[in-house]
């Protein structure tokens, strides 16, 4: 199976540039997820790959074939749409075989593929029904089946789970992961749900505002976010940010001084930082522990307490007025308006320069 190469893609709608010089390479059999906020261009990029949107500049390669000028049907890609896009007047079987019949595939081969896909997706008993006669989850499977039978080089999914209820969403997510293990093709999966992205992806492409912010494995995205946007977008609750002043720390690492005067030693090397002065400290709630009011690096008042069962999120208002989210055990006793202490795990802190680029703790000590 071939890999996929996007080279300097540009797409404009009228005056608006929606995809701005995007390049990306996808390895054979890779599961790639496009993640980003609404309107950032994920669907557009996916549709350019499918051939549903024209490419204004740049190239798309699938293996050694340049496909950006080919008709959608000729690219050997299959797509699963958000609203399934099944043909309502055709039976499930006809839906699945329509594309194969259009290329005059022998009937025996069509039957074989449809039967195999139906068996894999457990929709054999639905083959003679129309889409209107099956449930939403079943329709989703048919849509996937319609993609499978084409034996494409690349599967494209545009938010295929967003129409399902929560339980079905989780189940289908697992099934898509299993499907990926069974086929040899690469997959691109568009979502704005970070849980889907983290659980499914080999690598995630985080997009924002026409551009790719970062490409990396879920753990890289999470623990070494390339930009402040990625840091803030991935992870729940969102990362805490605070403007800091840098001072020299031990062993060539820097320390960061928060507005309320607390200084936190990090494991970020002084040498790796650019010369600029304005830095933001970024630190996730899990690296801020709640402790007794006297024992922490700093202290504040619990403004809001969110009990999630396995852990408790405490929104603490610090003395200078900023609010940070810190984590406590699931059994936490913290109540509203309690005075609490907050302990910073500086080893897990990130710094973002005035270009919003991320700088992280040295790799061997980073979490």
């Amino acid at each position, binding site marked *: 199976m071939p890999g996929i190469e996007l080279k300097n893609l540009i797409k404009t709608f009228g005056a608006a540039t929606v995809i701005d010089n995007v390049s990306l390479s996808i390895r054979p059999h890779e599961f790639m997820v496009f993640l980003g906020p609404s309107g950032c261009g994920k669907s557009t990029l996916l*549709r350019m790959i*499918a*051939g*549903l949107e024209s490419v204004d500049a740049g190239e798309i390669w699938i293996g050694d074939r340049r496909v950006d000028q080919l*008709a*959608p*049907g*000729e690219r050997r*890609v*299959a*797509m699963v*749409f*958000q*609203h399934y*896009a*099944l*043909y*309502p*007047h055709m039976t499930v079987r006809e839906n699945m075989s*329509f*594309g194969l019949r*259009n*290329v005059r595939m022998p009937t025996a081969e069509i039957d074989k593929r449809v039967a195999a896909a139906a068996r894999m997706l457990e929709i054999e008993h639905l083959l003679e029904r129309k889409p209107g006669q099956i449930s939403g989850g079943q329709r989703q499977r048919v849509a996937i089946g*319609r993609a499978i039978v084409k034996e494409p080089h690349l599967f494209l999914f545009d938010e295929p789970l967003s129409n399902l209820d929560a339980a079905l969403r989780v189940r289908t997510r697992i099934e898509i992961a299993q499907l990926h293990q069974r086929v040899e093709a690469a997959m691109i999966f568009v979502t704005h749900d970070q849980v889907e992205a983290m659980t499914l992806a080999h690598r995630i492409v985080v997009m924002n505002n026409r551009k790719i912010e970062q490409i990396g494995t879920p753990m890289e995205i999470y623990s070494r976010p390339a930009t402040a946007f990625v840091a803030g977008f991935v992870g729940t609750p969102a990362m805490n940010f605070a403007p800091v002043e840098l001072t020299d720390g031990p062993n060539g690492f820097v320390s960061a001084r928060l507005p309320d005067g607390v200084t936190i030693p990090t494991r970020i090397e002084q040498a790796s930082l650019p010369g600029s002065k304005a830095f933001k400290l970024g630190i996730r709630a899990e690296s801020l522990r709640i402790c007794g009011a006297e024992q922490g690096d700093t202290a504040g008042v619990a403004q809001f307490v969110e009990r999630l069962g396995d852990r408790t999120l405490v929104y603490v208002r610090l003395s200078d007025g900023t609010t940070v989210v810190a984590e406590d055990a699931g059994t936490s006793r913290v109540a509203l308006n309690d005075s609490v202490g907050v302990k910073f795990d500086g080893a897990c802190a990130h710094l973002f320069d005035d270009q919003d680029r991320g700088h992280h703790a040295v790799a061997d000590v980073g979490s």
Partner: protein
Amino acid sequence: MSAQFASGTVGRGFGDRLILGATIALAIVMIMPMLWAVGLSLKTNQALLIDTNSVLRAPWTLTNYYDILIGSGVFRWLLNSIIVSFGMSLGVLVLASLAGYGFARLDFPGRNVIFVLVLFGLAIPEQAVILVRHQLFSDLDLHNTYAGLMLPGMSAPFGVFLMTQYFKAIPTEIDEAAMLDNASRFKIFWRVLLPMTLPAQATLGIFTFLHAWNDYWWPMVSGTNPQMYTLTVGIASTQQNFAESAGLGYLMAQAVFAFVPVLIVYMFFQKYIVRAVSGAAT
């Protein structure tokens, strides 16, 4: 009607029964003219000359219907009506489907302007154009031909409007899925989208058929040859005899012959017909 009737007057009081009774009485008034015509058609012309109240008493007879069978233009008119109504409906469906797809899905220079101009046509009443149209058809020698009877109905913009709306309501995801399925543009139209518009086709087809069947003015001035009369025009032509009342029973038999089949068809397709007529109005 299958849909739920949300009623503000649920309940089974005396008031309800009163309303129901009044409505039934009104319904009887409603069908009275038809029953009266049926009654008259079952009497000989001579009996009716003496007293039309005799419809309430035997003897009744089918002679008037027998007379129609052996010597009347009614069959020819019926045939003409069928040909014209089917032809016009087919024409409208084909033209409106193609144009609706074009306006809804394809881009071409001036598309939106052209569509708005077509919509303006909805406001043009037949009466405003019928004279010039009549002259045009004279010049083209189209009077007293089936084409002459069918073409004006095909120029009405309603069908194009309806089909465009319907095509627009189909998500473009469907077209895109078909493109990925290697379907050509025409195949997408013909095999994927067109079958999805069947409900609209039924509405439009029935509406056009009824319109053609009942149309009076144009067929009267265009198909002036009795061989080209539609049923509607033919029945009207016999009404001149009405003054003499000589053939009242015969005349009514013709009327019954003309409206009973329509009512039977109506009973079977009531749901679609109601939808077609109401849909056309709003």
